[in-house]
């Protein structure tokens, strides 16, 4: 038997082993003390208690001491236990329409993945662009982006990875040495990330933002309205991102036939499209059309759930498939985030905290919008983008009244930049996936990512100022 002896000092071993418990104990203790303090001027006792729960959730979401979903559950329990909201109301927020929309969208995406329709679509687009190394790079970038319009961006990056790694291997690109190899994986990650902000389907943070908006103000944003506001930004960002990739990563490969062969081999292996793929494609396309043009009358969640029912009517997926492709933790996280957002807004804690954090810097509505966009786009690098929406949006919406800003504008200003994590693997899985290929270094993502981030912020501000007023979103 191989016995290994830990030779570190005992205190160091004990400290390392108990650190997590000590930290959790300290955070819970501080929350308890804060919740029982005398509230500062301008904040009710209820507001102070909800601010304490908000602070604890924020710390847990940032540090990952507990899984995101469990922190979401904990937030609901604490809101009920601390009597910020009656337990009945707190738990009822789980029945929010957005939760059922997300649920439906994820089950639809699972059918697209399971039937192989997603891989077929990816290979179809790649075939169109497979005539030269530069076109192929663009093909990978645009395929990731377009698929992320209609499926979760993380799932797109995970699905594209095996295709791109085989292409890189086939072209004999050397990990860390090949500039083209680097470009392929950055294109995969950034395509998925940028495409993910275009609709409600690329990242569930977008419907979460709409749910928080609706719960706190009664206002909403439709599927088509969102696309109308965000897709032009996405198109500009795609051009900017591709320019940055090709500027920094030289396309050094010339022998390209193997990549073309690989793509066509994969297409042949898939065979002809099956009836299941056609039917899934038809249901998905019909659902998107209904979401775009009838969401105000029929309701996003109703359309999503009816589409899911039709998948089961035609036996396109089984419940076992759905369980394998959908992570139910998302429901707990989002239920908690909506409940927390509602509690801190209704108790006045969000407005109080917003005024302290942002109010001292912001003198005009435009400054408020810019500050929230800057906070969201930079904080999202280190924290899950969903958590960023859950943390920042209630503060922004609460401040919109005092600055006379349309809360829908604040919603866009937090949700869109929160999805743009280009630099670090902590914020979003696609960049972590690109790094795992071995072709990309963190410093590549940091250098190219910071340039893209600054450009994205500039594009966002310009579009807020000049484009959005044209479609009725005014400051």
């Amino acid at each position, binding site marked *: 038997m191989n016995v290994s*002896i830990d030779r570190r000092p005992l205190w160091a071993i004990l400290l390392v082993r108990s650190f997590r418990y000590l930290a959790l104990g300290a955070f819970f203790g501080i929350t308890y003390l804060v919740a029982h303090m005398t509230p500062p001027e301008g904040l009710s006792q209820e507001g102070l208690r909800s601010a304490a729960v908000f602070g604890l959730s924020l710390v847990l979401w940032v540090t990952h001491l507990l899984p995101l979903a469990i922190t979401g559950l904990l937030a609901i329990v604490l809101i009920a236990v601390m009597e910020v909201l009656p337990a009945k109301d707190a738990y009822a927020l789980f029945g929010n329409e957005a939760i059922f929309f997300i649920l439906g969208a994820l089950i639809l995406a699972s059918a697209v993945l399971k039937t192989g329709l997603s891989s077929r679509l990816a290979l179809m687009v790649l075939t169109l662009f497979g005539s030269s190394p530069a076109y192929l790079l663009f093909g990978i970038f645009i395929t990731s982006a377009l698929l992320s319009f209609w499926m979760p961006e993380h*799932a797109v990056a995970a699905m594209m990875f095996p295709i791109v790694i085989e292409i890189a291997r086939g072209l004999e690109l050397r990990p860390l040495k090949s500039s083209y190899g680097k470009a392929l994986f950055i294109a995969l990650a950034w395509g998925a990330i940028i495409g993910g902000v275009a609709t409600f389907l690329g990242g569930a943070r977008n419907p979460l933002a709409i749910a928080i908006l609706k719960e706190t103000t009664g206002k909403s944003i439709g599927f088509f309205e969102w696309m109308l506001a965000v897709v032009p930004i996405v198109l500009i960002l795609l051009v900017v991102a591709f320019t940055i990739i090709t500027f920094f990563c030289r396309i050094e490969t010339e022998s390209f036939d193997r990549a073309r062969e690989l793509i066509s081999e994969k297409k042949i292996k898939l065979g002809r499209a099956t009836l299941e793929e056609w039917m899934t494609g038809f249901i998905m396309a019909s659902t998107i059309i209904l979401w775009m043009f009838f969401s105000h009358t029929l309701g996003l969640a109703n359309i999503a759930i009816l589409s899911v029912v039709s998948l089961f009517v035609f036996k396109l997926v089984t419940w076992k498939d759905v369980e394998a492709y959908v*992570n139910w*933790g998302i429901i707990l996280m989002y239920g908690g985030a909506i409940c927390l957002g509602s509690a801190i807004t209704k108790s006045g804690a969000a407005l109080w905290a917003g005024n302290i954090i942002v109010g001292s810097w912001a003198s005009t509505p435009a400054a408020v919008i810019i500050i929230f966009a800057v906070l969201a786009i930079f904080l999202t690098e280190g924290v899950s983008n969903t958590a960023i929406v859950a943390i920042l949006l209630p503060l922004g919406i609460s401040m919109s009244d005092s600055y006379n800003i349309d809360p829908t504008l604040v919603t866009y200003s937090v949700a869109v930049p929160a999805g743009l994590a280009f630099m670090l693997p902590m914020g979003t*899985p696609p960049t972590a996936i690109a790094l795992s*290929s071995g072709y990309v270094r963190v410093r590549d993502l940091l250098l190219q990512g910071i340039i893209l981030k600054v450009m994205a912020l500039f594009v966002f501000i310009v579009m807020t100022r000049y484009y959005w007023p044209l479609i009725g979103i005014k400051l």
Partner: protein
Amino acid sequence: MLSTTRQSPKTIDAAFEKARLEKKGLTALFVLDSEMPESIFDKLTDIGFTGEKPSQQLHDSILTEYRVRGDRKLKELEEKALAMKVPFKTIIREGDFISECLDVIAEEELEVVIITRKKRSTLSRFIFGSALAEISSKADCEMLIIDE
């Protein structure tokens, strides 16, 4: 001792040179580092809320790629050993770098371990620890450390 992220040509040259001069056999261990694919798996499920199946498929795809790279590297070394007439043996393992190294050191009763020290800041070593320091403290054999 090689791994997905530890393949310094300087260390490989030093190992071959030592084996040739001392007329000893060389055992090359390549560890397919499972830490990265596992962290991606966790990220996809915990932050990305992706289901188990796509996360597992991606995990397997990353490990397959690492295995291909490991096989290729070991084949390259085998050819080098043949040319230099150094008795050569290859081992490929999947898992944690430290425990796989320690296991192979014990199983193969190695006399000397030749390993790369990666370029990292002192702060990074202090915060994240050092695999090399841990192997040195636990292995019952001579260690030859080559800076990257």
